């Protein structure tokens, strides 16, 4: 099967800082691929380049059969690739339903008002937010806001979903529900590429894990394999003390 997303030597420099260096990877269609690495490794920068918020300094990004390097975010979204933000950003003054309606109205494939509404309601149903549909997004709890991010992203009808730390800040019970939700999204046939710090969740969910450190890809493989690689342990814990 052709991969959903192909990164070729993707590089991002901020002045003298090499945030991401020559990252080459393929994201398999229909799978969950995890992206892990210590803080500041460049994970979010990679997501921002894929979704079009940032333009790579160098390298190519191919989505399906189209090169999307340097496309604007709305165009990438309309093509079927959507990003959820690490720090949730709901439209505070809009109701929960209207928040999702924005996504349903403008996401991939233009829709008429009536079907956009049905789509938005379906996304709320799926994420368990339907009872909160008429409240302003500003009153939601953090866990609900994370769900709203996912509902909005799903309403754009993505074929690839980039999840940036959907579990961060959730308590164990909420976290469990969120993990379940990610599984259900996968079951719908959506390819998932996720950044996550909660190791247990990444290891349990991912079919494959990419590890980056200092902007470079240092490991790529099944979770159990990657977790035992010396360079990965070193990246997280530092070098083994001799003696």
């Amino acid at each position, binding site marked *: 099967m052709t991969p959903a997303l192909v990164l070729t030597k993707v590089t991002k420099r901020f002045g003298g800082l090499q945030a991401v260096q020559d990252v080459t990877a393929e994201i398999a269609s229909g799978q969950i691929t995890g992206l892990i690495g210590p803080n500041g490794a460049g994970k979010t920068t990679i997501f921002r380049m894929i*979704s079009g*918020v940032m333009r790579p300094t160098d390298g190519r990004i191919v989505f399906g059969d189209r090169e999307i390097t340097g496309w*604007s*975010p*709305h165009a990438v*979204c*309309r093509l079927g690739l*959507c*990003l959820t*933000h690490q720090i949730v*950003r*709901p*439209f*505070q*003054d*809009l*109701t929960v339903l*209207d928040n999702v*309606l*924005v*996504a349903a*109205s*403008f*996401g*991939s494939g233009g829709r008429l*008002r009536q079907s*956009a509404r049905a789509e938005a309601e379906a996304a709320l149903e799926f994420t368990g937010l339907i009872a909160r549909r*008429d409240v*302003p997004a500003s009153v939601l709890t953090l866990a609900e806001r994370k769900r709203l991010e996912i509902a*909005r*992203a799903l309403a*754009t009808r993505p074929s690839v979903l980039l999840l940036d730390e959907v579990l961060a800040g959730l308590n164990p019970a909420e976290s469990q529900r969120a993990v379940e939700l990610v599984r259900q999204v996968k079951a719908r046939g959506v390819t998932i590429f996720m950044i996550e710090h909660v190791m247990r969740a990444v290891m349990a969910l991912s079919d494959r894990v990419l590890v980056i450190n200092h902007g470079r890809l240092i490991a790529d493989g099944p979770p159990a394999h990657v977790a035992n690689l010396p360079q990965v342990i070193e990246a997280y814990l530092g070098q083994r003390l001799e003696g």
Partner: protein
Amino acid sequence: MPGARASVPSAVGLAVLLALVPFLAPGNITLLNLGFLTFLFVAQGLAWNILGGFAGYVSFGYAAFYGLGAYTTALLWLAGWPPLLTYPAAGLLAAAFSLIVGVPTLRLTGPYFSIATIGVGEAMRILMLNLDRITGGASGLNLPTAVPSKAWFYLVALLVASGAFAVAAVVRGSRFGLGLAALRMDLEAAEGLGVRTALFKNLAHTLSAFIVGACGGLYATYLQFVHPDTVFSFTQSISLVLITLIGGLGTLWGPVLGAAVFYAVQDYLQTSYPTFHLLVYGVLLILILLFEPRGLAGLAGRLRRRPAAGAGRGQAGAVERTG
């Protein structure tokens, strides 16, 4: 949108009532003049609110569109066009100019955008003052004196204001309006969900520039005189901001209420105390920003909801939407 839907019958009713005035009091020139100028401000406030209120881009440069519209009409009228035909041309020229200005400046956000628009507005004023071959420069341009009656102007301005209201109501309830509301609250999130933010901002800008340009044209025929320092003045730009803020930023009825109050205050105070109205606006603005950021429209909504707190919930939701 329940709010917008309920607004349409009341707006139509109000417009019909106001349209009867010239027939009931044909000789009352003061009233017809007051009506004309108020409607002109209503239309412009509604137009400004599409970009400033719905999309959240506060421009201090709309005098450029007003002035361009006024001069377009003036020059075409002098060239022999009938006045009525010059208004769409005035609107179109202003709209074209808004694209030239909007494409670069709308990349800025918040105060940076506002400051850039002050620059554009002032640059236009000075440019027009110095292009005296075309604009008459500091002595202005005298226009033909054969003009229709005050009642005609009153009715045309009412028509323009009603048109602007209809446009604002349609925009607010549409997919386009939803996109504008989204980009106002979070530009990056809106863009990430597929909203073509750059296009939408420019469309909103151009749409409102068209209306303001047509108003400028109407004003030129009404006054039979144009001068760069009046039609391109910073006061003209700031009036639209004040009208909308006083009335209620981003609300449908705000600019209507705001313009009525604004012009009544100005008309009443300007003759007796020439600069006192500025103080009144200043105080009004501070009070509004402190206590009711939704302006008079928000205040009216609050008073209306108090007797029926429970029944008002649907309304409240609708207000939230484009708030």
